[in-house]
């Protein structure tokens, strides 16, 4: 009996070890390799609590193993009646007092970090961005710079950026595991926190709160660039005028189709104001279409022709625009992929070193 019990334990241990060796996850997605201030604060506490609690776990397992080795019923002593011990004040005091001390060791840094991360007093000295969650996409409004993006959030590296989160429909939760923990995006109030990236890179962001059929597909990206690049990106975005784009004849036709098929009633390209659908200003630079598709023309055509097939229950529906032929969708895709306002794109950001 003890043999297989030990074997199982060994298997579990071996398995988890293999898992650890195989890496801590994708370098721009995992919370285990923090690349930002909030993620680092969380990681410090994750490590502290894991170490403390693992020590407790080891003590428990050690005692359990000793008990099972020493105090099994022995052959020839079936009638042995052990001493009926009522308890021991000393022992019980020990295993009450030690956990209390351990709890204090974990609680004090938690409270300190909690107040540190919730601090919004300095927000006026930093950039503020309003983040709005929609089923199933994200909108970013750079209030001070009067520019907007959807799905891709550009931030300068090494600077605090304050985010005001609110939802236009149901509860979402805004999470960039590598940069910071998550904060809920409530329909009734604005939640504020700050993020700060330590390294340039393209980071995965996800919705963490069940928000409907396409909850799993509500991904976004955070593009952390150097402060100089960021300033240039802001300038480019501000001066971007889609009317001045030099388009070939196919893309020009696509532009006309885009306008003729009612797309503009939901999708702005640049500008300001509250959107109904994602702002397409930097669409040509997106790392993913609709948050999840590889940025190829074929995928975009599929998307325009049947968005509900790709992202169930999303609000881009044929009630709002007519059915579109594959040919027309192709032309519109050509146009949309030309929407590249800036030299600063996810492609110009250096890859994160994988660890």
């Amino acid at each position, binding site marked *: *009996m003890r043999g297989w019990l030990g074997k*199982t334990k060994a298997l*579990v241990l071996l*398995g*988890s070890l293999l898992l650890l060796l195989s890496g801590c*996850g994708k370098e721009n*997605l*995992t919370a285990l390799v923090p690349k930002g201030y909030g993620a680092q604060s*969380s990681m410090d*506490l*994750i490590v502290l*609590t894991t170490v403390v*609690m693992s020590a407790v*776990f080891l003590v*428990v*397992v050690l005692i*359990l193993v000793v*008990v099972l080795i020493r*105090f*099994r019923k022995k052959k020839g*002593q079936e009638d042995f*009646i*052990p*001493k009926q*011990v*009522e*308890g*021991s004040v000393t*022992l*019980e005091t020990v295993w*009450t007092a030690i*956990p209390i001390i351990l*709890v204090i060791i*974990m*609680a004090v840094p*938690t*409270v300190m*970090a909690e107040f540190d*991360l*919730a601090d919004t007093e300095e927000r006026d000295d930093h950039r503020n961005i309003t983040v709005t969650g929609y089923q199933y996409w994200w909108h970013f409004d750079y209030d001070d710079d009067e520019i907007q993006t959807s799905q891709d959030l550009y931030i300068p590296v090494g600077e605090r950026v304050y985010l005001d989160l609110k*939802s236009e*429909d*149901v509860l979402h*939760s805004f999470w960039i*595991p*590598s940069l910071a*923990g*998550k*904060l*809920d995006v409530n*329909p009734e109030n604005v939640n504020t926190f700050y993020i700060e990236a330590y390294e340039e890179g393209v980071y995965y962001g*996800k919705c*963490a709160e*069940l928000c*409907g*059929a396409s*909850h*799993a597909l509500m*991904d976004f990206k955070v593009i952390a660039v150097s402060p100089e690049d960021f300033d240039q990106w802001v300038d480019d975005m501000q001066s971007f005028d889609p009317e001045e784009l030099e388009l070939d004849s196919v893309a020009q036709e696509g532009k006309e189709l885009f306008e003729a098929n009612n797309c503009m009633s939901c999708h702005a390209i640049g500008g300001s104001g509250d959107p109904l659908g994602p702002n397409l200003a930097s669409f040509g630079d997106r790392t993913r279409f609709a948050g999840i598709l590889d940025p190829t023309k074929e995928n975009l055509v599929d998307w325009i022709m049947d968005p509900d097939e790709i992202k*169930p229950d999303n609000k881009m529906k044929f009630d709002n625009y007519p059915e579109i032929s594959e040919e027309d969708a192709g032309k519109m895709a050509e146009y949309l992929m030309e929407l590249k306002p800036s030299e600063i794109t996810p492609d110009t950001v250096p890859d994160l070193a994988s660890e």
Partner: protein
Amino acid sequence: MSTATMTQKRSFGAALWDYLTTVDHKKIGHLYLAGGAFFFLLGGLEALIIRIQLMFPNSDFISAGLFNEMLTMHGTTMIFLAAMPILLGLMNAAMPLQIGARDVAFPFLNALGFWLFLFGGLLLNLSWFLGGAPDAGWTSYASLAMYSSGHGVDFYVAGLQIAGAGTLMGGINFIATIVTMRAPGMTYMRMPLFTWATFITSVLILFAFPALTINMFLLMFDRMFDAAFFNVDLGGNTIIWQHLFWIFGHPEVYILILPLFGLFSDIFATFSKKRLFGYTAMVFATMLIAFLGFMVWAHHMFTVGMGPVANSIFAVATMAIAVPTGIKIFNWLATMWGGSITINSAMLWSLGFIPSFTIGGMTGVMLGSSVADYQYHDTYFVVGHFHYVIVGGTVFGIFAALHYWWPKMFGRILREGLGKITFVLFFIGFHLTFFVQHFLGLMGMPRRINTFLPGQMLDTGNLISTIGAFFMTAAILVFVYNIIVSARDEQAPADPWDGRTLEWAISSPPPYYNFEQLPLVRGLDPLWVEKREGNGKMLPGEPLDDVHMPNGSILPFLMSFGFFVAGLGFIYQTDSKLWFLALYGGMAFALGCMVVRSLKDDHGYYIKKEELQKALDREAK
């Protein structure tokens, strides 16, 4: 119901009628176990479908909408329709015997509680066939629940409202039973730990379930009668739902685990042949856990934006729960220390519980650190954590309890070999499935996602997790087989485990009146005391006399059916006013049954003392 018919062989119809009308706590225990087992298999099937969908990236085994229905129904079914009723079944089966009582305080109410649970559960699951199950998660957060189209969430509201009322009745009933019906000499501080845990759990039910009831009413009024408690556009607030849900939901977790804490205390003492180490500390630790359980609900809401003061208070309170829980773990270890330990299936599940639940407890403390929780929250880390608590604690405990009390409940001993195979398969499968999920969460996998893209390094972990689920499925099949084959084994003895508590002092299964004479309790572990200091038999605590018994009644079944019909009426009256007929009709029928119950005198019947004397004589031989 006369006593003579009890021993005769009965037709299936008669047996069915007997169970439909029974008010006997042991039979109601059987019903709860059967109902809970049915829903456990259903919830397990849903879990398996979830894991198959997540076995590979970009999988389209089931659609996104159906996946959300699966995850909602898996959680709701497992918590409300599997774990809760199975625990209520175990309490029904064992607690009255442990305190030396002939039944619970309110046998009629006991039956009503069961039938309300069953009809509530059936109503909820009917949604599968009537346009789609609820799809807003088992927590059914109001913003999404308000948006959810179709009637799924309406079924959730109506089904849980009815089932929840049944649970509340069970809780009140057990409190009254333990306060008023303990055998002579059974003082509070001589009660077995399972009885203590039942008592404290019932108090939790009494205070926690009303919060759920109110929440369900608010959502019902919003969805069915155009109120605006959660409608933000009209000034409502969806955070209220979260608070009310977790004011119920967190104590609910302790409702699920505390009875098993009690059970493990009994099992460790029995199979180590030692009295429980630190009995008083164990009782007060249980109370402290229950008390603190009401103080920590908002740790489920650290990311809601409550601010640092609230988050800090709830973080510290949450960590504090580790202290009484630690006391319990170490007291169990100390109980076994120096003992003479027998390892059988019941004990295996209990031993497996200690490391498994300790992992769940340690991740619990880790989650309590609010800033760390900003990463854990709503990810697979949390999924791993609560399955370690609920499966590693509650389900392990339920299996231990079934092996331990099966002879007392059904008069058969489950086969040891099959029991051990079940445990090994389940133990491996459980750790395979859920351990890796902690890492998946930290590697960036949110919970409740129906699919994930390849290339995020989440593939291997999810595959391992799904493989584990198949192991657990196999284990459950072996257990079901065990139940079937052992049914043909010979009758179990009264005391197969060298037990310490009162339920082992009477035959397996017990006679329908439990005790001919209520036993005299002379100390903690009363049967053990008699084995060591007496002749191994309980002394009578009362002279032999006629015993008063309640009559069976079909009214609980009918009443619950009335509420079931009314529930359908509530759900569908938004479509057509004709459904108000069902609403009012069902209500009128249920209320009519109550009137009949109130006005019709039912004095029960007496078992003559001559008959009891005969039973005593038989036992003496």
